[in-house]
């Protein structure tokens, strides 16, 4: 059992597990194969493309991973090599599990030195590794089954392929929305702000950002309960979507904070949109799902415009600083930085 587990193979497997965790990647056989090729250094063209993605802090979303696999690993000639690489990784993973399982017995066989070594810190480490590896293997087994099933279905008829593609599209679309409010989620925002800032850098056109926070939201939750809190979040999201123009983009940034991107809007135009949002919310005398009317909901808004060459984090930081200033100055205000 131990003979199948070369030190280098185990080292690469550890690194693959680390990478999948670091980039939040599902452990499918295809993804194992990609990262095996990357870390083992056997595929330089794949490695330099992945390095370009990593150095630009691009996200390894499902579409990107699929493109990498299709582009570098799924040509018919290479397909077998990949399946081999994939099963090699799985085998190594199985070995690691077996090693963790049989750790104590092996240690006895190898004598007291190894027994001492395998106790304490190493055992803890192996237990942790084992849990994550077991999970990954389970996931990939599930995925392997699903992949075969899809393959069979695809051969059946092109109509069914189209249905599957549509379903996939829906799944991808859903993954970009915040489930509570129906506006774009944080993950989608992170990608969209890059795309819009890239366009603004090329065109030289303005790009405004609103950081929007619900005032005293904790008090709403504490006083009326979380259901009312959720209703307030939905109402604010709806108000934001109705108050902005067609090309604008609304996302839930986190908690009770929303972000709005405004293409072709300078500070002044962004300020006006922010005012419109505040006024639209005031017009809605909502009971927010309670018997008694909830004291009116107000918003604090920070405004900041993209300057070509800004680091995105700097720009968002300015918007947050403006929001903080609006809060500090008494809330229900708009500040521009």
């Amino acid at each position: 059992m131990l003979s199948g587990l070369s030190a280098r193979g185990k080292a690469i497997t550890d690194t693959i597990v680390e990478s999948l965790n670091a980039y939040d990647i599902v452990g499918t056989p295809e993804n194992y194969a990609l990262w095996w090729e990357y870390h083992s250094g056997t595929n330089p063209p794949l490695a330099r493309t992945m390095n370009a993605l990593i150095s630009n802090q691009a996200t390894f979303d499902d579409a990107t991973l699929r493109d990498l696999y299709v582009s570098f690993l799924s040509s018919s000639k290479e397909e077998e090599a990949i399946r081999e690489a994939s099963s090699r990784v799985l085998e190594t993973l199985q070995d690691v599990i077996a090693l963790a399982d049989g750790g104590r017995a092996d240690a006895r066989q190898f004598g007291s030195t190894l027994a001492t070594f395998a106790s304490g810190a190493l055992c803890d480490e192996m237990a942790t590794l084992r849990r994550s590896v077991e999970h990954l293997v389970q996931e990939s087994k599930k995925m392997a089954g699903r992949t075969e099933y899809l393959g069979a279905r695809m051969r059946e008829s092109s109509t069914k392929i189209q249905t599957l593609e549509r379903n996939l599209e829906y799944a991808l679309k859903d993954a970009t929305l915040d489930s509570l409010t129906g506006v774009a989620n944080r993950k989608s925002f992170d990608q969209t702000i890059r795309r819009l800032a890239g366009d603004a850098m090329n065109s030289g056109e303005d790009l405004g950002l609103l950081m929007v926070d619900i005032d005293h939201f904790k008090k709403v939750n504490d006083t009326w309960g979380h259901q009312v809190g959720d209703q307030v979040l939905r109402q604010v999201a709806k108000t934001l979507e109705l108050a902005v123009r067609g090309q604008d983009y609304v996302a839930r940034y986190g908690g009770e904070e929303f972000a709005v991107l405004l293409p072709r809007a300078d500070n002044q135009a962004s300020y006006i949109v922010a005012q419109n949002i505040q006024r639209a919310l005031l017009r809605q005398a909502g009971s927010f799902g309670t018997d008694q009317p909830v004291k009116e909901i107000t918003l604090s808004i920070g405004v900041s415009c993209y300057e070509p060459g800004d680091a995105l984090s700097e720009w968002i930081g300015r918007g947050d600083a403006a929001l903080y200033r609006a809060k500090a100055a008494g809330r229900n205000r708009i500040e521009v930085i």
Partner: protein
Amino acid sequence: MAEMAAKTCLVVDDSPTVRKVARRFLRHTGLDIQEAENGQIALDQCTLKMPDVILLDWNMPVMSGIQFLRHLRAASGGTEPKVIFCTTESDVDHIREAFEAGTDEYLMKPFDAKMLNDKLGNFFVFDHDPSA
């Protein structure tokens, strides 16, 4: 810096905004900055004198960045310049095509000072932090 002063960087982009930002970020490197607004103009400039490094946009009128790069690498002395593709194109197919055409680095827009200088740092050693 004496050694750096002789080195040249050609910024190839149809966007005046991007050329201006790049010039600002490169000011402290000591690189001599040239500009071209499409691939054809860039190619003409390279025929006169090869730059040491080229910052290259993808989508441009007249001649695109990828067409320019293929012409450049086929030209006499055209393998010498270090090329950094600099584009909003961020998908796998574009990145792969760029490397196959002979780019040395790939930088995605929107870029900031640190991102650009990190890429340049792979080719040159600067006397001081250029982003400072």
